[in-house]
């Protein structure tokens, strides 16, 4: 046999082997399900779930179906992941820059932070914060008052609920869009005139939040603002952010922040030293040279591992299941699975969700890598 024949034989036998394996799995699974008197299929998704969920962004009650539970799980997973990604990005960039600080104390503290949290399991981290919030935060009666707009106690964080009419939402969106266009234009003009851009994201957030708050206050946006109110035993109204969510977000941000810090440090070190010397000698301050010269070049090295880090955040948000935060794994692969017994369908649906997210993130990474390679000298 020559090489090509061997190759064809190997490939065909692989296909046959895999088909046999799949056939075996299907046959035994069917037999097992039949023996247990269980049916299969996705029909259970239309059944009433009948259990409550402690926290949900979309409307949900026990009367809703398992399909709704799946959606609640997905939104909660994404909510925790997105906030944690923001958190670990902020921590990571600050600590990453601090790691290279010329002040030895700052660099030392940053190093201790990174080494401590990189080398301790994430689950332990999350469980610890959950314990701290439940036991060391004030009771409801002695809640921290957050400047009159909310409360913090061991049952969670309470913030005002803003429920806008559809028109009101449209106005808010319009404010953000108009501000963004304005800020981008201004930044462009500034760059042409002075050579410096401005911190666009920050200004957009600041201006649009102020304008929206102002419009809310004078009543242009039709919205009802429900402030949390404290009674003796409870806090009613507003939105409550449960301690499980807070612990999960804090744990994820601190853990992944340590990894992002190392990527940032690596990226900053990859920029030739002459760049910062040149930037300083043109009269830029330390901060300006970091923001305008070093960071933009370092981003090329930082972004690829940073994007895979964000994928890990989404995957690791599943650890919320260990402290009963109602994310996908907890309420769908946990409670729903126990109630319906549809292990195979449910676990496959959960895996499919994570697979989709992962593919989306890889797509973003590939597009970015292509763009960067194109720009390279």
């Amino acid at each position: 046999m020559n090489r090509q024949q061997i190759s064809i034989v190997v490939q065909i036998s692989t296909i046959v082997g895999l088909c046999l394996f799949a056939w075996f799995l299907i046959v035994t699974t069917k037999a097992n399900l039949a023996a247990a008197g269980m049916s299969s299929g996705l029909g259970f998704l239309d059944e009433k779930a009948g259990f409550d969920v402690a926290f949900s962004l979309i409307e949900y009650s026990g009367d809703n179906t398992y399909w709704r539970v799946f959606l609640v799980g997905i939104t909660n997973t994404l909510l925790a992941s997105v906030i944690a990604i923001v958190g670990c990005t902020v921590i990571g960039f600050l600590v990453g820059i601090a790691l290279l600080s010329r002040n030895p104390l700052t660099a030392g503290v940053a190093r201790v932070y990174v080494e401590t949290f990189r080398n301790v399991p994430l689950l332990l981290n999350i469980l610890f914060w959950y314990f701290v919030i439940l036991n060391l935060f004030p009771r409801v009666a002695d809640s921290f008052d957050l400047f009159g707009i909310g409360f913090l106690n061991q049952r969670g964080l309470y913030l005002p609920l803003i429920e806008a009419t559809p028109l009101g939402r449209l106005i808010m969106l319009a404010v953000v869009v108009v501000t963004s266009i304005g800020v981008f234009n201004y930044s462009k003009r500034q760059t042409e005139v002075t050579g410096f851009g401005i911190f666009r994201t920050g200004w957009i957030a600041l201006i649009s939040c102020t304008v929206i708050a102002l419009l809310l206050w004078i009543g242009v946006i039709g919205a009802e603002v429900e402030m949390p109110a404290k009674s003796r035993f409870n806090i009613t109204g507003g939105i409550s952010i449960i301690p499980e969510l807070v612990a999960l977000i804090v744990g994820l941000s601190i853990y992944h922040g340590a990894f992002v810090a190392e990527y940032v440090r690596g990226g900053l070190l990859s920029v030739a030293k002459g760049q910062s010397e040149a930037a300083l000698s043109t009269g830029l301050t330390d901060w300006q040279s970091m923001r305008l010269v070093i960071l933009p070049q370092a981003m090329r090295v930082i972004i690829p591992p940073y994007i895979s880090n964000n994928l890990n955040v989404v995957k690791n948000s599943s650890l919320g299941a260990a402290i009963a935060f109602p994310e996908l794994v907890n309420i769908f692969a946990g409670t729903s699975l126990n109630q319906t017994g549809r292990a195979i369908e449910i676990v496959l649906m959960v895996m499919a969700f994570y697979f989709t997210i992962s593919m989306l993130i890889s797509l973003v990474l590939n597009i970015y890598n292509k763009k960067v390679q194109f720009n390279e000298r």
Partner: protein
Amino acid sequence: MNGKFMSFIRGLYASPFSIAMTLFWAYLAFLTIPTVVNWAVINAVFVAEDGDGCSRSGACWAFIIARFDDFVFGRYPEAERWRIIVAFGLPLILALSSLIMSQKQRGKILFGSILLFPISVLLFMYGGVLGMEVVETRLWGGFALTLVIAISSIASALPIGILLALGRRSHMPVIALVSTTFIEVARSVPMITVLFVASIMFPFFVPEGVEVDKLLRTIIAVSLFAGAYMAEVIRGGLQAVDTGQYEASAAMGHGYWQSMRFIILPQALRISIPAIVNLFIGFFKDTTLVLVIGLFDLLNMVLSATSDPKWLGFEVEGYVFAAAVYFIFCFGMGHYSRHLEAKQKQR
């Protein structure tokens, strides 16, 4: 040394901002260090009969000391615990003996000690031979269980990863597609779902009457899962081997397997060792997730000990202890991996 010290001091007041930071850290240290030292050392109780013997103003290390054996050995019967020490000791002695061997034999001996590990765990920890009673795996626990899961998973992930990595780079489209699909799917799902597959879905997949031990199922699942990550690490190593090596090996008349076995893989694996150690650190930390499916690893043993009625209210001590154990091991291995990496770069 003196120069280093002077530049350290100079860094403290290099600029106004630097001075502000120095003062800030000094103030923070003034606030926290005395509290921590008081709690952890000065007011701490090291010897006590039970929780009542501990003070509330200091740490109760007596709790950790009293339950230390359980943290190491889990719920394994006390009279049989010497078997765990033997099971871990034999491969460890073999691995250490490699230190006095020549460089050439060292690799083989280390490889042999990894192979010996599952065998000696099966023989001594599980038992049933040489007059040793069988100790069911549901009694295994503590740090010993953490090590059993982490080491056997990574050890079996190595051959799986090599095959997947070669498969992904194969010229046969079917093989490449199958390997790539497996690697990408496994890497995109969280480890918890894989543990669920092992503990909940697996029984559906085997004919009735066949029962596979839960710990073994977990180890198999984690091995396959880790295999996907290992494949990517080894693929990196394979890519780092110079193309000339492939060509030279083919020119010598080596077939595919011969050239992989004798020329390419030895180089690729050597390059991958630091990354493999990092992978091991990751999975060592991730073994904590087995508490979700009800196995009693170190973390779960510590957590369940905190609800011991004799020792109530010492959760913080438990968390600190568990964190310290993981930290020491992961930090140590991380240093070792960086040391290996630096040594490779020198060549």
